[in-house]
């Protein structure tokens, strides 16, 4: 299953997404942060653990105690800076 990354998360890892096996799910958001972090170096792991980095499940921002199920659309990104 693909976990989407945006902005400096994408840039730090050098990829737009991290692929995880379906059997990793269901998983809590805080556990998923650690798992995704393992795809990169220390800098990336640190970013993924930063509470300012947001998680969206099915395009809604979710807290760290939310659960991600197989088949959900999941993304991690920094605070928004549009407009």
């Amino acid at each position, binding site marked *: 299953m693909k976990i989407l990354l945006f902005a400096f998360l994408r840039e730090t890892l050098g990829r737009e997404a991290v692929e995880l096996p379906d059997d990793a799910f269901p998983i809590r958001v805080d556990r998923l942060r650690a798992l995704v972090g393992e795809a990169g170096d220390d800098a990336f792991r640190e970013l993924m653990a930063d509470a300012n980095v947001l998680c969206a499940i099915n395009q809604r921002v979710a807290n760290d105690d939310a659960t991600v199920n197989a088949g959900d659309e999941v993304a991690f990104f920094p605070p928004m800076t549009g*407009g």
Partner: protein
Amino acid sequence: MLQVRITQERIDAAALLDAFASDDDGVGAVVSFTGKARGGAVSALELEHYPGMTERQIEASMDSAARRWPLRAMEVVHRVGLLEPGETIVWVGAASAHRAAAFNACEFVMDFLKIAAPFWKRERDRDGRWQWVEARDADLQRARRWGLGTSADEAATYIVDRDNAS
């Protein structure tokens, strides 16, 4: 009545204002906001977004505005990709019978967009170096004026309260 569009093309704010709610003679007040890329130390801007979620969040903010105030039309157009100083980043129009609703709705949707629509901006300085723009705490404070980012509001389902995030 409520429209959102994300575009790679240059935004023509005047043309948008000209066409906006123009055939509705019940409209007595139109408020428009044009957000532009400033010059100075910045030589270019690049805007990235999360397609799908962006439209969804902006639509949610317009739905919320339409529940709060009697609107006749609302439109948001947001640029993505590479921009030069002076170009328009975002245009928001709000139309109502009277001005209070139009002012409130336009400002509300902009405040919401700033903290809840998944866009990220980086700037190129005069030496060609790119730097990600940091989120401004002032934007979060402004959004809180409307009760956004608190459990008291329907919008809480769209915005995580970062102070209470783990």
